[in-house]
């Protein structure tokens, strides 16, 4: 089984700084990590590799320094890593990103694609599902459990107040939640091996991709304005019985003409 895990390198902070001029992320001076949901996808892939055998490839699109995230994936136990990096991909929104990644995935070949639910910097949750659409394969989002049964996967899809158990044929794409597992530590020797490994860097020229649909130019999304939300007041805490609590909430909503 060939598993490809899409990972994004993200700034390790909830306070993402945004360039007011371009509306894109400022990466300088912020420590970078593998996006937590993506890291859970990597752990899920490595767990499947341990259980039923698989080749795990980590795939990332980003600036050259995203290579470190891929080396971390290798040090955790991924077999291969590929970086998609080219200035011409810069400024891509989810549409241009998913088109680019789908093209790389076609080149790589796959039985299973794992993506994180969403990235902590952009929070769109769009790239995984869009990749599946571009590739014309089944997808299940918000997955918290994966089991291989025969040639299909049995997965648990989480909702706010319930879950579904689904059986999916392969090839398919799953987006997974960070709550599904605790990613393993890197291995000391694995880190040294990871830095000895060659990580191919694919540019626009290596992919069969429509050049009108990549990078900032190929991105239909236009950021009108980005700003850091002001902090709200502390709010009031009532310690009361549920019925009284409901009454207070309704009263406040009425006061503000919300209901």
């Amino acid at each position, binding site marked *: 089984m060939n598993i490809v895990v899409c990972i994004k390198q993200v700034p390790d902070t909830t306070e993402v700084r945004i360039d007011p001029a371009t509306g894109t992320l400022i990466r300088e001076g912020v420590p970078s990590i593998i996006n937590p949901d993506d890291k859970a996808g990597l752990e899920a892939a490595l767990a499947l590799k341990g259980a039923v055998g698989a080749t795990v490839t980590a795939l990332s699109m980003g600036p050259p320094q995203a290579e470190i995230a891929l080396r971390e994936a290798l040090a955790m136990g991924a077999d291969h890593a590929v970086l998609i990096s080219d200035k011409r991909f810069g400024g891509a929104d989810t549409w241009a990103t998913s088109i680019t990644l789908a093209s790389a995935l076609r080149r790589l070949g796959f039985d299973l694609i794992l993506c994180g639910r969403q990235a902590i910097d952009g929070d769109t949750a769009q790239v995984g599902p869009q990749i599946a659409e571009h590739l014309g394969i089944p997808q299940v989002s918000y997955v918290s459990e994966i089991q291989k049964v025969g040639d299909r996967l049995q997965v648990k899809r989480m909702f706010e107040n319930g879950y579904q158990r689904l059986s999916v044929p392969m090839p398919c794409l799953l987006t997974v939640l960070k709550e599904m597992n605790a990613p393993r530590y890197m*291995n000391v020797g694995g880190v040294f091996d990871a830095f000895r490994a060659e990580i191919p860097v694919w540019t626009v020229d290596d992919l069969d991709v429509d050049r009108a649909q990549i990078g900032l130019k190929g991105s239909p999304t236009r950021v009108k304005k980005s700003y850091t939300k002001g902090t709200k007041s502390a709010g009031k805490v009532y310690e009361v019985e549920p019925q009284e609590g409901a009454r207070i909430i309704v009263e406040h909503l009425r006061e503000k003409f919300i209901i």
Partner: protein
Amino acid sequence: MDFQVRREHRLLIQMYRAFAQNEVRPLAKEVDEQERFPLETVRKMARFGFMGIPFPKEYGGQGGDNLAYILAVEEISKVCGTTGVILSAHTSLCAAPIFEFGSEAQKQAYLPALAKGEKLGAFALTEPNAGTDAAGQQCTAELQGDHYLLNGTKIFITNAQFADIYLVFAMTDKAKGTRGISAFIVEKGMAGFRIGKKEEKMGIRGSATCELIFENVNVPVANLLGREGGGFGLAMKTLDGGRIGIAAQALGLAQGAIDETLAYSKERKQFGKSIASFQNSQFQLADMQTRTDAARLLVYRAAALKDAKQPYSVEAAMAKLFASETAMDVTTKAVQLHGGYGYTREYPVERMMRDAKITEIYEGTSEVQRMVISAHLLR
């Protein structure tokens, strides 16, 4: 000149830090208070490759270098001095001399299990009457055909009853003084070898420190490490490497105490503001971090020299001297900045201060380091 650690070391630090925070820190208080050897942590460290960092893969190691190893000791000692010394004694004082001085057969026989962490190592040089004066060995090893008959007592042995492989020093020819000392690989379970009294210590209380007693132990000739009579030189060279490990332990303790104090000084309010806003706290913290960074550069330099296969004995002595005295100074200041709470066991800085003291004593006291350094200057 490059004062940055390389990218692979930065990624390792990230991993060590996560491991130390999640696996080591939660046990540190209990390990200290109950004087409990954290065997479960040693097993976990083994799983992720900590027990054989600087040894080649062909001997079961991780194919890393000495800097990678001492970074692990530093990160772990930031949260637990006990676990730091277990790793340091195992790696520097047992696995390393077998790797550096062992025959191919000895390396094949002992190194893989040590490097994989399946077996734990210890080093037995100190005796009741041979501390700093290591040449005054009373233990004897008498050649009898295909084996040596080992007799005597060692004290203050780290990893003690939890170790499986011991590097033991004994006199093979008393008439020759230091040139009559030899080194032997002794295995747990050899007839006549038993563990004696356990020490009750001020700090690093979770690390087992015991007496080793040898009564007519038959040690095969094949277990002689290096040549007969070469034991003293082998011990001194081993301690040169060990000092970098202890220096890293001291460095970790100092940095760990600073990290605790930074957090506390921002939280603790006196006179209506955080104690971090008082200039005394600020100046103390500035001094603590500056001194610790200076220690760090000395420690990393010594490790880098060892990795470059250049002489590092003097640099290791400087690193150990300065880092251990820094650890003592910084942890004492950390307790002071914590005030009355710092003196309680509710906060970890008093433990760090107790742990720091031993780094000025073992694997060569500060006075021995000054002897090594001045002898080099005045030769």
